[in-house]
């Protein structure tokens, strides 16, 4: 019984982390999947969200900014908002760049953000980070607190999914895809390419900030390591590509699946003899890389490939009568 309870809690932790990663992956899907923006600085936006959540909600502490004790939901909104603002600033400068240059620029910016959090000790407590971050529902008795938190994360994923799916299948998503497919032609069709790219980048950044805010709560403590490009940027890209770029269901599936794999490799590598254990991180990356290779060989479009919205019924002429329209219906 005791053992099953352990498995149950492990399952919940997988769902929670998978859900948090799903928020990040959905954010990246807006940028890369829909619009083709190569944001290689996910870690930076994620860190902004995490730190905003931490600073706004923790009790007063001499070593870092804090003591505002905002309610958790409000802090989460603020985390999204600030990530969006940072995303707007970055996009204003970089959005005209071609894909590869945008990637380089965003890597650099994420690194700058990480260094700021590491070095501005008065605000962030430097490398030691911020602890005792309040977590939603933590006052409930175990296991209800864990369950409630999982439920909240999954509900957030669901809401984001529905919102993004609605937008993707609407003219908004059509414009984004057109820009991804051919920028010059989208401009020739009267679309303000720069504005749409900016919008896509900002929405994605806000979601990444939300992911950070959730992660800060879940871990209850953060330090500059949260913006490690390996776990924040690389892993999220792998999740999206494996799950299916431009497919919202694929993004969620990829996050859940790859997180499970990532987590399982930790169990494996922790059994390695000591001299390998220090290198375990690299072994895990190697395994993830291998899986990515395998998926790309077998299913280059990801597990769930991109799908256009349901066929538009013909309004005129031979076929379907006008009654059963609903092109937004997915």
């Amino acid at each position, binding site marked *: 019984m005791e053992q099953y309870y352990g498995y149950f809690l492990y399952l919940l932790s997988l769902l929670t982390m998978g859900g948090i990663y799903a928020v990040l992956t959905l954010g990246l899907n807006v940028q890369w999947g829909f619009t083709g923006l190569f944001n290689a600085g996910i870690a930076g936006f994620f860190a902004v969200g995490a730190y905003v959540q931490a600073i706004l909600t923790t009790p007063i502490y001499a070593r870092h900014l804090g003591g505002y004790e905002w309610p958790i939901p409000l802090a989460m909104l603020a985390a999204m908002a600030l990530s969006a603002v940072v995303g707007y600033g970055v996009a204003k400068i970089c959005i005209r760049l071609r894909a590869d240059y945008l990637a380089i620029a965003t890597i650099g910016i994420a690194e700058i953000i990480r260094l700021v959090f590491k070095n501005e000790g008065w605000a962030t407590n430097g490398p030691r980070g911020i602890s005792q971050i309040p977590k939603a529902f933590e006052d409930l008795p175990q296991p209800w607190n864990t369950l409630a938190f999982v439920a909240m994360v999954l509900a957030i994923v669901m809401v984001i999914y529905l919102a993004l799916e609605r937008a993707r299948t609407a003219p908004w998503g059509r414009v984004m895809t057109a820009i991804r497919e051919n920028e010059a032609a989208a401009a020739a069709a009267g679309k303000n390419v720069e504005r749409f790219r900016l919008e896509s980048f900002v929405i994605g950044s806000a979601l990444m900030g939300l992911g950070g805010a959730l992660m800060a709560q879940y871990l209850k403590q953060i330090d500059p390591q949260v913006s490690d490009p390996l776990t924040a940027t690389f892993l999220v890209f792998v999740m999206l590509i494996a799950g299916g770029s431009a497919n919202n269901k694929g993004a969620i599936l990829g996050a859940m699946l790859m997180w499970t794999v990532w987590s399982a490799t930790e169990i494996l590598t922790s059994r390695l003899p000591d001299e390998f254990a220090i290198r375990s991180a690299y072994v895990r990356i190697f395994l993830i890389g291998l899986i990515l290779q395998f998926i790309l060989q077998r299913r280059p479009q990801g597990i769930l490939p991109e799908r256009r919205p349901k066929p538009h019924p013909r309004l005129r002429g031979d076929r379907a009568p006008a009654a059963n329209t609903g092109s*937004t219906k997915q």
Partner: protein
Amino acid sequence: MTCRRRFGEIMDATPILRVDNLVKRYGGLTAVDGASFEVRRGSITGLIGPNGAGKTTTFDIIAGAQPPTEGRITFEGNDITGLPTHELFHLGIVRSFQIPKEYGRLTVIENLMLVPPDQPGESVWATWFTPGRVRAREREVLELADEALDFLGLSHLREELAGNLSGGQKKLLELGRGMMTESKLVLLDEPGAGVNPTLMNKIIEMIRRLNAERGYTFCIVEHDMDLIARLCDPVIVLVEGKVLTEGPFSEVGNDPRVIDAYFGGAVSAAGPA
């Protein structure tokens, strides 16, 4: 529509487009070298010239895809030099590309539905908070797109990904974009290239109808002299970035300077024959 047509007839005398002393240099290479010409409202104007004469570059500059090094573009009396492409679209300038630029992973019908302006569903907020408005406009746009597809004869491919179309079908789709909005000036870059004779006749027919029924002004770059002869009046000849001559095709086509420009090497190599 009728209003615009009548207005158009009154304005007939003033050109819809004026290109003044246009220059485009790429480093040491001068692609366009002081070209000046006018496009008459309601006309189907041809722009011909040998390979590398600067025709596509001229189109690119008119449509705002790149800025000129020197010169001025005037559209309906307003200076539009250097305006971005998407703003020119809303003024009524629509262009097609020499190499078709379809949105490969959108369906054929979506390729057309993308084009019309004033789509509330292009605002992400509207898709969430006023879906009714979005859906209503979406139906109008859908009807328009189906109408265009019927006209183009591509209806059977409406749910196909545009990337899977043949070269000629992609050319038709390029033309279709111009039908999805109230265009005033349509710039077509080699609409007949790589298209079989049957399709060619269809394209010619389409251009005629759009010109007559909707009052579109056309400016067409084309190497197929049959298409030029059947459609275009006047024809402007661009050689080495300069306008060599201009007039009805019957005159221009027999102008020795034009023949020389096209077959220059061959004629002079043949010597005094």
